[in-house]
């Protein structure tokens, strides 16, 4: 028996993996739409547009300039993401150049509301919108459990399975969960 959360996650995952459209994109907006099918290899429910990695696509008379920005400088997912962009655009023989931009530097504020919703449904607490706490030993502000919504949670580790997350535990439902840390 699959639990409701697993089913939901699978349905979101499937929605992302819809086949590529037959029609070749004809302008920058359509290229953005097309590239929005590419998901983060570590968090397959969220696409690169929702995550704020895909910054812009512009037509440059002869080719499209696709601007992307890394979340963390050492994030190994960036190589995968760039390869996925190439694969998709090559399928349509679209001329392009990928530009990796570091400035302004990526922030979790760029994750769209839909992106944040999808993270939560997937079991990852989205970055808090509250003031960032700077004092030592005060954790990262109030982080709600993505499963039971309790605010009674505790930081287990500032660093977790990927560079962009930290590890929490819910004191109500006792489940551990990832928190997409503010950056």
């Amino acid at each position, binding site marked *: 028996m699959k639990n409701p959360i697993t089913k939901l996650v699978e349905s979101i995952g499937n929605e992302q993996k819809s086949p590529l459209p037959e029609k070749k994109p004809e302008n920058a907006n359509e290229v953005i739409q097309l590239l929005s099918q590419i998901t983060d290899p570590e968090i397959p429910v969220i696409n690169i547009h929702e995550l704020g990695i895909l910054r812009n696509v512009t037509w440059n008379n002869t080719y499209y300039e696709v601007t992307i920005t890394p979340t*963390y400088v050492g994030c*190994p997912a960036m190589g995968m993401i760039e390869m996925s962009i190439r694969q998709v655009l090559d399928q349509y023989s679209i001329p392009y150049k990928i530009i990796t931009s570091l400035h302004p530097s990526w922030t979790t504020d760029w994750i769209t509301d839909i992106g944040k919703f999808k993270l939560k449904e997937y079991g990852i607490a989205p970055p808090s919108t509250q003031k960032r706490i700077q004092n030592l030993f005060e954790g990262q502000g109030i982080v709600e459990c993505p499963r039971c919504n309790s605010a009674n949670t505790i930081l287990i580790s500032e660093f977790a399975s990927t560079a962009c997350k930290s590890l929490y535990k819910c004191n109500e439902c006792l489940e551990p969960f990832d928190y997409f840390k503010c950056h």
Partner: protein
Amino acid sequence: MSLKNYTLFLADTSLILGQRLGEWCGHGPVLEQDIALTNIALDYVGRARLLYQYVSELDANGKSEDNYAMMREEREFKNLLLVEHPNIDFGFTVARQFLIDAFFVPYLEELSKSKNERLSHIADKALKESQYHLRWSSEWMIRLGDGTEESHKRIQSAVNSLWEFSGELFSPVPYEKEMLLEGIAPDVENILTRWNQSVNSVFSEATIIKPKDSWFQKGGKEGVHTEHLGYILSDMQYLQRTYPGQDW
């Protein structure tokens, strides 16, 4: 030439520290801290890559970022002596990390205002990561310093041994001075004041006694290293030296 050397100093410092932290992979005292150490390592290796990529663009001899990391010898590396020190134990690694994080946070803040756009963008990106690292290393300095008798003893002795390598952070070599004049590198005099503030406040909470400044070891920035660097390089560069150009 000075810009290239200066960028190599930043790149080499990042790479060697990344490699040292990476040695903790699978050896951390607890799983969470094993992950923390290797996450920080990853940030440093990422930073090193961006800097080597820039160096290879500055240098029109067709050398790739990998060439710089994997095919140079000790005397060509310009990293700080502080970062090449062996990990010894968790406390020693935390102390080394704290001293460098307390340096990098103000340093990158200033470098992000550099006249060199490329370095300023890299610094801007790396700054947020270093702020997060500093929080982690500060908390651990306090936990260990103000912890048990054993943890206090070890962290104090780590600070004592590392202290003579901290002076190099604030002793500019000719290429740094030139970069400072051109508005590219930060003025380390100003960084020193802020570094001291962080160090004093964390040490006092951690009940760690700040060692007296005496003679400081230097040389790393100009390629004169401790014996430790050769061992790191032989480990790190083994594969590329044995199978040059190997890729995966």
